[in-house]
């Protein structure tokens, strides 16, 4: 006798956010990305539609990044050139989007001007056809200036820009509204702050389908379990029709995973941990694959070898199941 499986029927689904715009939509992208839209828990095709496969945006910075050699060697000589670097990510590694970090703007570093930052964004837009995720330099005052300039210069491109945080969301939200971009709303692993921030942003007039949630994940071995559970709760909330939790989630996988010692220490230092090469790749890979299981829609990644593995994992999970 066939058994009756438990198939959940949810009241609602994850909201959908469109990133990028093609020429007839007012931009210059050759394709757009649609994130979210699922009406089931991750990859449970048997109980609802997994509307859009999760996507990977590869990280590109406007200064040479202080990353380990396992990652750097794969890129060859493009790391001092965001344009060539972005092209490589798209053409060689099939990145769905480029995640451009304008670290060079940091006042304690190169202190690049907002105009220069905007120019870099334009150049990267000119070099690749995929949509862009753009964030600043982790200095909130400077970021407000930088992102305003970027938003204006890239008007019409429907970027995903960040970061809006609880104590600093107004100027970026305004920039996104005026120039028609989407916003990353970051909250520190806290459902209530997450909802509160989404309310504040939408009260300014930015529609909910222009917001993406950044839950501030922890990397593998360093607090991923907190992110895992917060995200799982948020996904369940979205499916239960909690509109302020219904946005797709974005995860800073490459950044968090590669802060871990395990992603960087050579086997000579820690013989007990095995060779760095594969360990480093897997540290980033598993940070991504674990969070895919709790509803990550956009993964921000670094290591091309890890990107390849996660692309495969996503493709495997997108196969129908019953």
């Amino acid at each position, binding site marked *: *006798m*066939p*058994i009756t*499986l*438990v198939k959940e029927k949810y009241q609602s689904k994850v909201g959908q956010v469109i990133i990028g715009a093609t020429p007839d939509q007012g931009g210059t992208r050759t394709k757009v990305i649609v994130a979210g839209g699922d009406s089931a*828990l991750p*990859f*449970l*095709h*048997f109980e609802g539609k997994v509307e859009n496969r999760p996507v990977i945006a590869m990280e590109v910075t406007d200064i040479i990044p202080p990353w380990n050699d396992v990652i750097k060697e794969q890129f060859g000589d493009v790391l001092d050139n965001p344009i060539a670097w972005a092209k490589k990510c798209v053409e060689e590694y099939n990145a769905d989007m480029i995640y451009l970090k304008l670290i060079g703007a940091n006042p304690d570093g190169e202190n690049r001007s907002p105009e220069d930052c905007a120019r870099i964004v334009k150049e990267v837009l000119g070099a690749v056809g995929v949509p862009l995720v753009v964030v600043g330099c982790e200095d909130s005052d400077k970021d407000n200036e930088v992102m305003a300039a970027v938003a204006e210069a890239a008007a019409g491109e429907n970027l995903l820009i960040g970061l809006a945080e609880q104590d600093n969301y107004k100027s970026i939200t305004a920039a996104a509204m005026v120039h028609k971009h989407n916003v990353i709303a970051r909250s520190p692993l806290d459902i209530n702050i997450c909802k509160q921030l989404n309310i504040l942003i939408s009260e300014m007039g930015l529609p909910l389908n222009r917001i993406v949630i950044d839950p501030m994940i922890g990397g*593998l*071995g*360093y*607090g*991923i*379990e907190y992110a*895992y*559970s917060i995200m*799982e*709760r948020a996904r*369940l909330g979205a499916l239960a029709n909690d509109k302020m939790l219904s946005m797709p989630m974005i995860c800073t996988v490459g950044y968090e995973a590669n*802060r871990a*010692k*395990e992603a960087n220490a050579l*086997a000579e*230092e820690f013989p*007990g*941990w*095995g*060779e*760095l*090469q*594969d*360990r480093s*790749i*897997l*540290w980033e*890979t*598993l940070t991504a*694959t*674990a969070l895919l*299981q*709790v509803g990550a829609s956009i993964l921000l990644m670094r290591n091309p*070898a890890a990107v390849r*593995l*996660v692309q*495969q*994992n996503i493709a*495997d*999970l*997108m*196969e*129908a*199941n*019953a």
Partner: protein
Amino acid sequence: MGLTGLEIYKQLPKKNCGECGTPTCLAFAMALAAGKGALETCPYVTDEARENLASASAPPIKAIKFGNESVLGDETVLFRHDKTFYHPTTLLIKVSDKLTDSEIEAKVQEIEGLEFDRVGLHYSIDGIAVVNESSDQDRFSQVVEKVASATSRSLMVLSENPDALKAAVPGIASRKPLIGPATFENYEAVVNFAKEQKVPVILKADGLDALNELVESAQKLGYKEFVLDPGSRSTSQTLANLTHLRRLAIKKKYRPFGYPVIAFTGKNEPLDEIAEASVYVAKYASAIVLKTSIKAHILPLMALRQNLYTDPQKPIQVEPTLHVIGDVNENSPVYVTTNFSLTYYSVEGEVESSKIPSYILPIDTDGTSVLTAYAAGKFEPEKIADALAASGVAEKVNHRNLIIPGAVAVISGKLQEKSSWKVVVGPRESSGIISFVRTMQG
């Protein structure tokens, strides 16, 4: 799992004789439901009632024990935020009997090396699954014996040929291996053999309908030490099967699926295999059989398993007392941090690598990280100053320099005032400690 008083009452003799110490059967039932008293105090309960009550109060997923303290199953929730996951996915490495003797030796040696220390925790691989791929029964027995003598870890012995199992298992039955698989073709022989040897057995069928039928047939043989294998080897279908089984067991208390579930990876390329296995660690596999046994591959998977199986209510903590690193003397640096194990061990690891014997004082912050504790008012200057005074470190060193995490530089003035130690702001990340302390020491 708790039964209601009424559910228990239905099974009682309803004599209201009071011999159990409570005046009525209903009162007795209510007491039992509240966890007070024992069923045995009623002299009149029937065997049938006893059986019914035991099975109704059994956990939704049976605990299956095998090998060297491996426990599968006994989970109660679908999401770790609902309570916690209890029994971390048992990870076993496959050894084929098609390998040559020297290959087997090398493989087992590699597996034996799968012991890791990170952030104050020790991870070890759980066991080895010997698989009969040679179709040679004698070879299989030989290999089982060889592997068993080379490891004290848990063992799985897998062959679809009952005769091969009958030859290989008795010699190691005292090690309580998990055996199988029992399929539609062989289940009577295999389950009866498992019962006779008192070892748990894997039931394997293709798909859940077939598995359901197999479990029901196998249960009729009067044995219940089962582990289920729904047969899928692709990532997506395995995720679906693991989810269905867990949901039916927990949400519907569907008894035939109230057993732990084992997953076998389908991928052969090791990095892809680990990515696949990570899905099963996250979603409900009680055990996974892997092919790769390379350290760099297994450590990340074990870290994920440890992370997801920590109790969300209780972060792992260290003793908030003065910790001594190396052969300290009166010039040794003094660091302050929190008692969140992750934070503490990130710092300890670097302090150790600096090769400068030191003191580390973790403050009791209920196991939270530096900034979480600071934001929650658990890493206040007063509190740190008190802990510093109580630690007695002042008598052990002849300097008064206290190194604090860079992330809480803002507390330095106040802390200096409260403690009358000179507060030195360290780097933000623990990875900066080595170069920091070297320059500090000049």
